[in-house]
């Protein structure tokens, strides 16, 4: 298992643009420590994280480990356990470039990548400081309207790697994402897609239409590894709940650099 995980994380190289999913969509938490070890050994990260559409523990751990140069996200939070402590610290100390977004803008950027277009328009935004601080977003006058109609354009979000966790995959590399279609959007937009699964099954997930409806096809998947409870301490929809106490323990400990180091020195539960 650990060898499988190492096989996966070797696809990630310093400076890459990495897509990570929101807490409840299936976070490949089990890959986090192997990824940190791999990148640290490779001489540092300088990763550009893109959270789809918000980030949590996994991003906070990567930030705490000093591997993140920039992060594009609509929010960073540990949910009930509060703010993301290492992110907050890095912001305060100016150690990270933050590209504040809003959830539908992240989805829009991925959609543009999926459709192979340089941008898609998005309503809202105008007059917000979110837009004001995003020189890469551009307001134009809607070319199809007779009356003046300013609208923002969001450029396509392309990534080197997408990393997530799913309930089940098959030997062909098809992975079952169910209703969590943002995982498909991430895969469409990424060159390399690394997936951990609770279980790898021998029978094809595409062999019946009911399971096929929730499948991200192998065409988009680079590597799959089997890891039980691979999202812990996050939960996995329909499988197991989040370990809120563990999240709270982290939230409390990781407020300082020392506390974070202490947390990382412990063997994960």
């Amino acid at each position, binding site marked *: 298992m650990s060898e499988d995980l190492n096989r996966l994380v070797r696809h990630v190289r310093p400076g890459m643009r990495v897509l990570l999913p*929101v807490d*409840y*969509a299936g976070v490949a938490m089990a890959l986090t420590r192997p990824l940190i070890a791999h990148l640290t050994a490779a001489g540092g990260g300088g990763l550009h994280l893109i959270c*789809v*559409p*918000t980030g949590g523990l996994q991003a906070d751990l990567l930030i705490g480990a000093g591997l993140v140069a920039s992060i594009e*996200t*609509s*929010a*960073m*939070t540990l*949910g*009930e356990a509060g*703010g*993301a402590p290492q*992110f*907050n610290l890095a*912001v*305060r*100390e*100016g150690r990270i*470039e*933050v590209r*504040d*977004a*809003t*959830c*539908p*803008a992240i*989805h829009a950027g991925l*959609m543009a990548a999926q459709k192979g277009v340089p941008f898609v328009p*998005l*309503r*809202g*935004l*105008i*007059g*917000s*400081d*979110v*837009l004001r*601080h995003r020189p890469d977003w551009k307001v134009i006058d809607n070319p199809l309207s007779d*009356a*003046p*109609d*300013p*609208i923002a354009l969001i450029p396509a979000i392309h990534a080197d790697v997408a990393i997530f966790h799913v309930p089940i995959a098959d030997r062909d590399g098809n992975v079952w994402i169910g*209703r*969590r*279609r*943002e*995982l*498909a*959007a991430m895969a469409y937009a990424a060159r390399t897609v690394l997936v951990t699964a609770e279980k790898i099954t021998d029978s094809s997930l595409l062999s019946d239409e009911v399971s096929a409806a929730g499948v991200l096809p192998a065409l988009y998947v680079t590597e799959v590894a089997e890891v039980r409870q691979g999202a812990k301490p996050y939960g996995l*929809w*329909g499988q197991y709940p989040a370990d809120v106490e563990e999240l709270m323990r982290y939230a409390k400990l990781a407020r300082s650099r020392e506390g974070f180091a202490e947390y990382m020195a412990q063997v994960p539960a």
Partner: protein
Amino acid sequence: MSAPVSIREVLISCIATLLQGVRHVAVGAASPAPAAGAMLARALAEAQGERMRLSILGSVEHNFFTNGSAELFDCAAQGRIDAFFLGGGQIDGRGNVNLVGVGGYPQSQVRWPGSFGSAYLYYLVPRVILFREEHSPRVLVEEAEFISGPGTSPEGIYRPGGPVALLTGKCLFHFDKERGGFSLASLHPGVSLEEVRDLTGFAFTQGEIVPQTPLPSGLRLDLLRGRVRAELEGTYPAFAASWGAELKSEAKT
């Protein structure tokens, strides 16, 4: 004897009133009072033979979206969501909300999670209810340091949505779209006008007489303590339990 009406129940009832006539309301993941208010509004609508849909984000039971986390935003853009709730680390007198932080940007000395969907939903959902229990000059400020979403937009900007009200633990404000500011609508039981003035960092208008926020009673109170509290247990067990305990201990005294 039944317990007296608590502030929690006043807030929930007030939210339900603000949702009257709504066909579909979406509620954020960690928002038990808005969810309870929406459940009460739904129960009241059903009593009138009408139908109200409620989506609770992140809930499995109340999530009837099937197209990933983008669907909420698509749904709002399609005009299929009539009401939504927003909080904010800062809410200013023009209805601007700040969910990002204070003490500079981007190097904020106090950093909050971020804007989430506010820079979008605030523009598109017709009835946005600002809900923040903490009523303090720290939260209700004259000018937000960062605008996640503005309260109003100039003419010519596509903006079918926006704030209609701001509900705090002390009072209810209505938002006046024309003027772009708040007016005091009602004071919660036991709260004085002076107290609200002292604790509010922005200027607001008011009528000559400011009424008290109505207390739920009769059918409304029955639904609230019965059906709504039961429905809430699935998604917000901690909130429902503490409410239950409150009812029990109050009923005894």
